[in-house]
């Protein structure tokens, strides 16, 4: 297969084969060789506009870069099913020319607990080996578990919106500190600049505060600046420790999830045949 990166476009790409191979990786039938590349994670609460922003940014970037998007949505823990709804926002895929330069794939969290399953790293590896210049990851965006994207991404873009006004909760603080850049989206709505100021003043207490950009995925205001700033932003040294921490956590979780007796122990505990403590002992040897 031809490499497609470096602005050469996706012409040589066999999308069908690519999609099938990604499924094999997702189903753990195939482990790809490691390929490094630029992974940018977009995280933030549901509804703040992550998908719409990614769509807009692709218009800016895809004239010079080949881009793949991995958009993560939650798997229902009860049914194991998922509704993968981010693709609806991707107007750029409908563009006759630009659309061909972009590969978009919806990913369910499946058994993994963070807002970015570790499998995303493997999927990205394969996309880089196929010549994509960058991989954009949209996270589930749910509270604390959002930090997990730090394990995989080179740059973390935290998306906020107005209306959330005073509720930039303390629990968000950890994530904001990990941010390489903060976008306050929906600048067309009242309250956006107030939120931007609030974040600014809370982050100014730390020494290496990330840039804060106001933008609107709806009107396009600020998008060009945002696209530029994201590419220029260097991921900071201070976040490095947090990244390593998340990587270790992810590695441990994976080990646990892939133990043969994991489901068995859960069943035994829930049916009362094992106490919780006994279950832990079995899982930790």
């Amino acid at each position, binding site marked *: 297969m031809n490499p497609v990166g470096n602005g050469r476009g996706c012409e040589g790409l066999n*999308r*069908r084969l690519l*999609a*099938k191979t*990604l*499924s094999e990786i997702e189903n753990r039938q195939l482990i790809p060789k490691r390929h490094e590349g630029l992974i940018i994670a977009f995280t933030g609460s549901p509804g703040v506009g992550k998908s719409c922003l990614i769509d807009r940014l692709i218009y800016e970037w895809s004239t010079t870069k080949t881009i793949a998007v991995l958009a993560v949505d939650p*798997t*229902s823990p009860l*049914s*194991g*099913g*998922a*509704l*993968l*709804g981010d*693709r*609806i926002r991707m107007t750029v*895929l*409908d563009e006759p020319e630009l*659309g061909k330069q972009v*590969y*978009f*794939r*919806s990913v*369910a969290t499946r058994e993994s607990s963070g807002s970015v399953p570790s499998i995303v790293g493997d999927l990205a590896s394969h996309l880089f080996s196929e010549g994509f210049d960058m991989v954009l990851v949209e996270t589930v965006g749910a509270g604390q578990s959002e930090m997990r994207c730090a394990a995989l991404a080179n740059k973390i873009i935290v998306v906020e919106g107005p209306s959330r006004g005073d509720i930039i909760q303390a629990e968000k603080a950890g994530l904001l500190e990990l941010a390489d850049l903060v976008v306050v989206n929906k600048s067309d709505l009242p309250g956006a600049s107030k939120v931007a100021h609030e974040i600014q003043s809370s982050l100014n207490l730390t020494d290496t505060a990330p840039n804060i950009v106001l933008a609107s995925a709806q009107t396009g205001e600020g998008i060009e600046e945002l696209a530029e700033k994201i590419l220029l932003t260097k991921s900071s040294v201070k976040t490095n420790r947090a990244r390593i921490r998340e990587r270790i956590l992810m590695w441990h979780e994976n080990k646990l999830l892939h133990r043969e007796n994991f489901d068995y122990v859960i069943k035994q505990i829930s049916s009362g045949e094992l106490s919780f403590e006994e279950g832990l002992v079995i899982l930790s040897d």
Partner: protein
Amino acid sequence: MAGRQRIVIAKPGLDGHDRGAKVVARALRDAGHEVIYTGLRRTPEQIIMTAMDEDASFLGLSSLSGAHGHLFPKICKLLTEQGMGDVIVFAGGIIPESDREALYDAGIRAIFGPGTSTEEILSFIDEAVQKPSGVSVESGWKWQGL
């Protein structure tokens, strides 16, 4: 059960009725499948691209506006041309009995009208994965109802 499938639910053409498609998408999710809903007003080409990129094993088409006779066979033909003849196509909405034979001939394996139960759609999926039922397979198999 059929095991977890990746299923694209699509609304081709100008039809603005999306309740049924969303109901079906949610029901399939609750049955343990990974479902990608395309949103309204998709062209056949856009639907094919979605099914290809998302590696769908099933493609469900919904139409209540009467454009199925033209759009559905076109989608089936495009799938075959793109080397996606193994994708299983099924449909629902307002589709008169007299139009159905032509749609089955095009490779659609099941057609569900108003009032269809989730149970029936799930039974179809279970059976279809075991039958030669890809859109370009000339097996003659189609869903006969519960």
